[in-house]
């Protein structure tokens, strides 16, 4: 495994697959009702559960107290999808257990006591679930999870109750978006318990035509069924996007993607918004076989994020960042 955005996505509409399991310890109030002492205890309990489990698997994981992570790096972790924006809002009394390649992250003290996340490149929901499930099993060998035989795993928000599973795929849908299809897509999948959102989840608007599709229903549906349904929906969306792509005017598409490539290669000042817009067009050009250069657009996109830049190069004003972004992109692409 590797970092989801670094591995070449094989020119796929599916950029990444993510599995999240929400778990809570019994005998402790849920996070929004916890005091500092209980939060500290929670961190230590989960930490020792992993460390003492002594499996080869656990040795891949590292415990990080979030209060020791510099502010820009915390936000850079959000940009790399290692932690949720919600988790980044307050790092006090929160910790994370992370694998080297960041494909596995266990957030401690988010909305639930424990949130296991596995994120992989491309369409690999089953593999991601398999890994998450192993970590889950490893944890409940040593921890007692809040579980009810009727309601399943108990979560702070009843919308996650049951399996506590959120399975999602991130899709690149530039043509669906351009033709105003996202709304009807969202309505259609909404009716069967799935949701379409922007790149950073709840409430976020889409950037670079990247959309996240995930399950909403966690009670009364098994993990396997939720994942299988998401796969079916994903394949249908891919089919739709592909069909719309076939109808595009080739010359216009060439013009569009090469213009984007030229700008990204030679610009001197580049805002985050412009960068995302260009990357989306370049990715389309790559996926359609028009642009043949060795570029990983998703890696460029993630590494050009404002906090990714500042985490590497130190604090910058927005203006300085735009210059730095253009410089970095130029260096990587020529």
């Amino acid at each position: 495994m590797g970092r989801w955005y670094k591995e070449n996505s094989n020119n796929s509409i599916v950029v990444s697959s993510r599995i999240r399991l929400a778990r809570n310890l019994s005998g402790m109030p849920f996070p929004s009702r916890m005091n500092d002492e209980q939060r500290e205890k929670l961190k230590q309990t989960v930490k020792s559960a992993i460390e003492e489990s002594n499996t080869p698997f656990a040795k891949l994981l590292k415990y990080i107290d979030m209060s020791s992570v510099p502010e820009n790096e915390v936000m850079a972790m959000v940009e790399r999808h290692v932690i949720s924006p919600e988790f980044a809002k307050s790092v006090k009394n929160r910790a994370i257990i992370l694998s080297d390649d960041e494909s596995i992250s266990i957030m401690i003290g988010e909305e639930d006591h424990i949130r296991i996340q596995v994120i992989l490149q491309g369409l690999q929901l089953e593999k991601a679930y398999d890994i998450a499930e192993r970590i889950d099993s490893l944890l409940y060998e040593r921890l007692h999870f809040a579980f009810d035989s009727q309601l399943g795993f108990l979560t702070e928000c009843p919308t996650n109750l049951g399996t506590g599973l959120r399975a999602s795929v991130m899709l690149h849908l530039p043509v669906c978006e351009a033709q105003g299809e996202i709304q009807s897509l969202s309505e259609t999948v909404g009716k069967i318990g799935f949701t379409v959102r922007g790149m950073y989840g709840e409430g976020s608007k889409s950037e670079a035509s990247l959309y996240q599709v995930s399950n909403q229903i966690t009670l009364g549906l098994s993990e396997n069924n939720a994942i299988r349904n998401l796969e079916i929906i994903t394949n249908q969306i891919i089919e739709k996007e592909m069909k719309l792509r076939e109808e595009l005017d080739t010359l216009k598409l060439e013009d569009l993607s090469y213009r984007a490539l030229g700008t990204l290669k030679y610009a001197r000042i580049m805002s985050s918004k412009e960068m995302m817009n260009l990357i989306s067009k370049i990715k389309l050009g790559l996926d359609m076989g028009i642009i043949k250069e060795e570029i990983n657009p998703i890696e460029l996109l993630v590494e050009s994020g404002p906090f990714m830049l500042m985490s590497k190069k130190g604090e910058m004003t927005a203006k300085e960042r735009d210059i730095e972004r253009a410089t970095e992109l130029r260096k990587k692409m020529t």
Partner: protein
Amino acid sequence: MKCEKCGKNTATTHIKSIVNGVAKEINLCSLCAANEGYGNISNVGLAGMLASMFGESLQSVNENIGVKCSVCGATFSNVAKTGKVGCAECYNTFKNELLPYLKRVHGSTVHAGKVPNSAPLIVKPIQKTVDDLRTQLNRLISEEKYEQAAVIRDEIKRMEENSNG
């Protein structure tokens, strides 16, 4: 900005659509958005749903009953307002109140997924096929959990005997 549908709640969902080539923006509250088929359940949240069902009477109803979670002290109106329960015990305390909403959110009130090891699967062995159990047995052996493996092994034996006889 007020919701264009109900004119009551704050509009939080802004829907852009193109009708006959003209771009239009509609501003809805999360609840109306969900009713119109936009957005999704988790954005509406339990809070919105409960608030809309109970309306203003929510506060008084629950203060009259005066039921508090014995573990965390949360009242049902706390739960309804925030959309979050205080602790695991809250699900017991407010089960009757919560079940209709769970039904509405998930379409079901019964868990159908993974069951932790500590709640042993022998409770409902009939639902497991022999193949399922074999997979589990192999996993337990590879994890050197011989005690649990022995339970599964006996279970497989019993099931095979039953089906043969």
